[in-house]
């Protein structure tokens, strides 16, 4: 990782206009803004149906200043391939091609196209902003909705299945660069985007995105909730570079401190987890502890 950014070192150029249709306190709006700052002006975006489609504006007004192609739900990564191909035929090897899709568009309906583009080694960055559900259509469960979470179609007992580990799936494609980030740690996100530009082929970002209406908390607590997810060891910030995983930012600090905030605090701060029983929370805490034992041992 190159030098660490600070708030003051961030570029001031903004690529999103105010007055979008995003919900008040939207975690995506924070991550998207900082992500575009890192990508810069010479960038082309691809967006499938998702909250971002709404955030970025309805015809004829675009909230995004960068060129952006809206595509069908399952075709995000394939469309990125198409843009790269066209640019190559025009001798353009400098414009960054970046896809921004939600967790459903990535882990469910768009996974096949993403796997194809990754396997082809197309040179682009795929950002999955993971608010852990189909929020734009009214908070239905997705492949990355965590176990136990209440959603519109897991209304009473919460989602029975585990969260799909998409970064691991993408790492299995032997990508040069895979990273997880969080809207609550924008500087970490910014530095990782800058860092990934040096790597060839498809780069994959999985960004944890707190979502007030979807997760059930007061909008003002968005950053606190996002940080709790990391400080409890529940969602980890890391980079996988050519197959090697290293924890970064707040997760790296946890490695040194060797002390996790109890995951109960994260669950109790969100109404979507209100049906989690104490036993289930204990079980999840056990899984987190085992995972971190793994991190501690590899860190040595």
């Amino acid at each position, binding site marked *: 990782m190159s030098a660490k950014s600070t708030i003051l070192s961030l570029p001031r150029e903004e690529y999103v206009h105010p007055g979008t249709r995003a919900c008040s306190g939207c975690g995506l709006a924070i991550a998207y803004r900082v992500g575009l700052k890192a990508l810069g002006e010479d960038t082309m975006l691809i967006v499938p149906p998702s909250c971002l489609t709404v955030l970025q504006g309805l015809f004829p007004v675009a909230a995004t200043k960068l060129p952006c*192609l809206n595509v069908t739900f399952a075709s995000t990564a394939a469309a990125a391939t198409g843009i790269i191909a*066209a640019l190559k035929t025009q001798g353009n090897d400098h414009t960054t091609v970046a896809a921004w899709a939600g967790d459903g568009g990535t882990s469910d309906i768009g996974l096949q196209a993403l796997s194809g583009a990754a396997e082809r080694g197309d040179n682009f960055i795929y950002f999955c902003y993971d608010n852990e559900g189909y929020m734009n259509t009214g908070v239905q469960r997705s492949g990355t909705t965590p176990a136990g979470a209440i959603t519109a179609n897991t209304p009473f007992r919460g989602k029975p299945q585990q969260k799909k580990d998409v970064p691991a799936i993408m790492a299995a494609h032997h990508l040069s660069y895979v990273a997880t980030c969080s809207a609550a740690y924008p500087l970490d996100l910014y530095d990782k985007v800058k860092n990934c530009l040096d790597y060839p082929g498809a780069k994959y970002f999985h960004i944890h995105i707190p979502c007030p209406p979807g997760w059930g908390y007061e909008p003002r607590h968005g950053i606190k909730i996002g940080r709790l997810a990391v400080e409890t060891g529940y969602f980890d910030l890391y980079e996988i570079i050519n197959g090697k995983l290293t924890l970064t930012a707040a997760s790296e600090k946890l490695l040194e401190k060797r002390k996790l905030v109890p995951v109960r605090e994260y669950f109790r701060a969100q109404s979507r987890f209100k049906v989690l029983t104490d036993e289930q929370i204990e079980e999840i805490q056990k899984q987190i502890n085992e995972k971190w034992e793994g991190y501690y041992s590899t860190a040595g």
Partner: protein
Amino acid sequence: MHIIENGNVAAAMGIRLCRATVIAAYPITPQTPLTEKLSEYIDSGQMKAEYIPVESEHSAMAVCIAAASAGARVSTATSANGLLYMHEQVQWASGARLPIVMCVVNRAVGAPWNIWNDQQDSVSQRDTGWMQLYCADHQQIIDTVIKAYWIAEKSSIPVMVCYDGYILSHTYMPFDLPEQEKVDLFLPPFRPDYVLSPAEPANLNTVTLPDTRVDIHGELAHGYMEIRYLLQEDLRNSLELIGQAEQRFSEIFGRGTDPYLEDYLCADAEYVALGMGSITYQLRVSVDALRAEGIKVGVMGLRVYRPFPDEAVAAALQGKKGVIVFEKALSYGYEGALASDLKAALYDRLAATGALPRVRGFIAGIGGRDIRTAELTSSLRSAIQETTHTGPLWIGLNL
């Protein structure tokens, strides 16, 4: 210069001559030799283009949509269930007004699986806002691909070039290979009105509201309904463009026929057989046989199915006693889609004249069932002699 090759190669040569720069296709019988030939051209340096080995037909069209939006002349090809899997993207491409040219190597659709020829795949896509051009032989395949790019790029509407799987795609026949210089003269480089790029950023195809809305310049922008209407308007206007393409092509290459209907012995005919693709050439043999029996019959090959040339069809068939439609597809639950479209055109245009030709429909060759010429001839003869109207008769059915 004449060469002998199969229909797929004819199509691949047409795409290469048109200097497409982004090719994205997913393998499916009987289209595969086409994309393999394009890969050969590209790997051997005969063709400067990006070949994208996509992981599905849905992604094939996604690549084409994105590359075309970013200013590349693109090409793809598919058949049967590949086209059906791509349907969502097919609709998207026309709505986005992208001049994509796609070869559809006609094949039966599942279930059950069947890799042989019929036209159910492309006919089922007639409402998608794409133009559909049908080819009866290899010359028409390569020529139509070249015309298709000119028409598509002039109208900003995507075009399907359809030809029969196996019967044409895998069959070797001689055809003239157009010279590159002439194709370059016929088809100028691709200069779209707008290319998505950082130099001129825009947000394409985002959510568009039912009502019109003011843009950032304070001007009233269209609503979704206007955008769709303009697609329909331009599709109808494209009939004129298709005529110009034929004219321009014949000036440069010295060959060409009526842009909409390929006529064989129809001038003095009392009855006319109508169809699309290679069956219309086979019907010429039946026409000759019946002419020998003193029956005045001809055959018309419909070269443009969408936009439907209703005016040309009605004009050509005015005064005929009867039209016998031979189709390799149908709108299940009713009849052959071409038969319905034909009746509508005749009714709209000729009802007032009080002389509406009788229309009989035949369904043949479904799922590659061999169409024996003798059976075509006897069906044509019986349709001419009988006056009763019944729904489409299936030729070659074993029931």
